[in-house]
């Protein structure tokens, strides 16, 4: 049995997991331990609450500048594509932008009818600004956004407050190449929208 599975993981490991950064064997070992350790379950719950709290607070704070900016090819015009998941229902508009503090691309998720089932793409390994239109949803002070990989594991999450029926947040998590789901939950925890996303 692995050492991590036997002993309680550090606060850093809990944070890494809560932020969706734990991968590979460390992830396996941690999750196996989590299944049988009430202390670490409580610790993770507290870590989750702390992260949600600080994201809510820091979301309104001015963002520090990053010294390095990712580079990627900018398209000359916006790319419209259909999405998987809510497949015929969601379209991601990828609007290439000049690199700005914290992200290198912008993605808008919108509900549309009759779109083609083609997964929209974001550049792999780069942070991006995610915007989602919440028009038509019951009004709420906040929504929970999650990005899950094709195996269902949540790799990133955030709590965001809508403004003018739009939510907007930086996904700084560097997604590896592959298919992902972007899920939107209301304050009661119910899944209200889901979009497909490809990272390549």
């Amino acid at each position, binding site marked *: *049995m692995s050492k991590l599975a*036997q002993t309680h993981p550090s606060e850093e490991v809990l944070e890494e997991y809560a*932020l969706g*950064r734990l991968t590979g064997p460390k992830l*396996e070992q941690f*999750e*196996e*331990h989590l*299944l*049988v*350790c009430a202390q670490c*379950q409580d610790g*993770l*719950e507290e870590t*989750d609450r*702390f*992260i949600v*709290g*600080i*994201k*809510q*607070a*820091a*979301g*309104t*704070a001015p*963002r520090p*500048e*990053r*010294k*390095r900016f990712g580079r990627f090819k900018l398209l000359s015009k916006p790319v419209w594509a259909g999405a998987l998941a*809510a*497949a*015929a*229902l969601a379209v991601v508009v990828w609007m290439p932008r000049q690199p700005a503090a*914290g992200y290198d691309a912008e993605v808008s998720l919108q*509900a*549309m009818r009759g779109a083609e089932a083609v997964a929209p793409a974001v550049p792999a390994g780069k*942070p991006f600004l995610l915007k989602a239109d919440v028009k*038509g949803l*019951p009004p*709420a*002070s906040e929504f929970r956004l999650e990005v*899950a990989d*094709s*195996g*269902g*594991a949540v790799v*990133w999450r955030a709590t965001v407050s809508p403004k003018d029926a739009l939510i907007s947040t930086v*996904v*700084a998590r560097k997604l590896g190449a592959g298919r992902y*789901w972007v899920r939107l*939950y209301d*304050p009661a*925890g*119910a*899944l*209200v*929208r*889901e979009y497909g996303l490809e990272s390549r």
Partner: protein
Amino acid sequence: MPTTENQGPADQSAHWEQLVEQIRVGDPAGMEALYRVFARGVRFYLCRQLGPQELDDKVHDTFLIVVQAIRRGELREPERLMGFVRTVVRRQVAAHIDQAVQSRRDRVDVESGIHIVDSRSNPEEVLVVKQRAEAVERALHCISGRDREILTRFYLLEQTQEEICHDMSLSETQFRLLKSRAKARFGELGKKKLVRSALTQFIVRAKAASAD
């Protein structure tokens, strides 16, 4: 059956083998032990990934799958029971997502386009959430600029330690120290402000009640 947490690797391995064998032969003690060891963790994992809806059913399905798989001889290495349970739980999560996507596709209304659950928070819940967010935000502005920057970079922008050290010209040790201090300071202030906010709510409610 002893618990798992205080056992060494050899003990735990024997523990899982014994448990698996009990389940395989249909011994109710094995099933009870399996549930006792894993129920909280499975429930926690599923709730965290999928939310609280139909949680009991999902937990029950997970245990059913594990037990049936053990009885069919699919768990070839009994000492890997924890890993096996984890795999089953993750597959449950993936299956649930697939199902949710599929059922949404099947039920799509051409006019509305999206199936929306109407579950508004009540006004008090909305107020509590708002006040909590404000209290936390005020706490963030009470810590130093550098502490605030570290927390913002790490938790909001989700920069790695290496990136933050590079951007802020910090060593790894400095980063760990500063982050730990910033987090502790922020946590203390946040709690104080939340308590104050909860007290204010209580006073307001008490006044309203006495006015009635």
